[in-house]
């Protein structure tokens, strides 16, 4: 699969964070994915039950970590400080005298415990995905088609004049049924139309037969366009191609047409 699946920026951060540690096992803040990661690490290190966290102890450890850092990104620091504030708040709540035996749900630690439990699940999922990733990264899939059963190049059928005409007249018949309104009195010259079509082809590269004709304002104009196209095909100035049977017909200018076209316009 694709390369560069690791953000070099983040990796660099992680590597830097390991450097220059004076205290043997001391790890710095950046290697933790966030404050919850750090908290979870502390809880595990002390083999503490997540449902019964000694808040005073953990708060002290947590703050100790924050103080030991030598440099951390300000944005990240804010996130670590936010959880520090929460810890201190919980600690203060725990110290308040209670009027009566608090129900379990009143435990001020609950909010933190819920977040830690959720985060713990995320960590497990991460481990699972990491294993899967490692396996997949060592598997290679083919990204090319093997040669013999090569698909045919998009099946291009050159369209005969007959096909062209048939398609057109079927189309016209359909349009007549749709109560085509015919605006009379507008003369369309073959020369003009032919020039218009070539201009269009030159500007757009190719045209969609059906769309072009159905976009013509009047039946007369459509007919004139059609005869122009026949003329162009006959003179090998354009090529009409049907990509697949029963699909639209596309018209392209033939290459090396400039000479012909020149001659043609002088007729």
């Amino acid at each position: 699969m694709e390369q560069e699946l690791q953000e070099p920026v983040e990796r660099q951060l992680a590597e830097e964070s390991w450097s220059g540690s004076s205290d043997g096992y001391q790890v710095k803040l950046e290697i933790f994915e966030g404050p919850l990661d750090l908290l979870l690490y502390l809880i595990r290190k002390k083999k503490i039950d997540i449902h019964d966290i000694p808040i005073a102890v953990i708060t002290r450890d947590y703050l100790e970590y924050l103080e030991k850092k030598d440099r951390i990104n300000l944005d990240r620091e804010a996130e670590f400080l936010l959880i520090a504030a929460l810890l201190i708040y919980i600690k203060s709540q725990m110290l308040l005298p209670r009027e009566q035996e608090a129900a379990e749900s009143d435990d001020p630690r609950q909010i933190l415990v819920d977040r830690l439990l959720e985060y713990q699940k995320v960590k497990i999922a991460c481990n699972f995905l990491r294993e899967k990733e490692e396996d997949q990264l060592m598997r290679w899939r083919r990204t090319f088609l093997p040669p013999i059963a090569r698909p045919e190049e998009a099946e291009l059928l050159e369209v005969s004049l007959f096909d062209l005409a048939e398609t057109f007249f079927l189309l016209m018949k359909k349009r007549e049924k749709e109560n085509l309104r015919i605006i009379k009195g507008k003369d369309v010259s073959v020369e003009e139309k032919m020039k218009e079509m070539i201009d269009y082809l030159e500007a757009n590269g190719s045209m969609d037969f059906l769309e072009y004709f159905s976009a013509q304002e009047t039946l007369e104009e459509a007919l004139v366009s059609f005869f122009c196209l026949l003329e162009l095909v006959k003179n090998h100035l354009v090529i009409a191609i049907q990509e697949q049977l029963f699909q639209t017909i596309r018209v392209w200018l033939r290459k090396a047409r400039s000479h012909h076209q020149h001659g043609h316009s002088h007729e």
Partner: protein
Amino acid sequence: MNEQLKAILEALIFISQEPLTLEKIKEALGEVPEDELQECLKSLIEGYSAVHHGIQIIQSGGGYLFTTKPEHDQWVRKLLQIEKKSKLSSAALETLSIIAYHQPITQAEISAIRGVDSTYCIKTLLQKKLIKIVGRKKAPGNPLVYRTSEKFLQYFGLNSLEDLPKEEEIAKILDEEKQSVS
């Protein structure tokens, strides 16, 4: 066993650029009895799982696909002269796990679970096409909502989101960890 069907399936899985789904198989072959199809697929997969094969059929992203085996990674890379493929960063993986389990989900919700701003990770995952934007949440600010993509499944070799560990399985793993710690 319909040996001919099995051979055709082998050819189709081999030739397909994407993991080959049952729908596509049926579309290509027309009417085939479902049980016969399943039997052939099973037999094919089993056949390739033998040690003496260097290629294997895996189910990934809802389809069947030939890959080389992980143990030959080094030889393949030597042949193609490619470096080891790099992994996702832990931050990106964390973000992705949360999206996988909580989809559809917004950036703010992800950041809340992680306790860390996740905009950058989301951007990275979008660019790698492992997640996609699937609309907006009807909430103040109408934030964009994310889901994992097809490519997510393929990247991790998962057949569907069902393959992710379930809540109970995670609880079991946590239990085991706790025991091994104490």
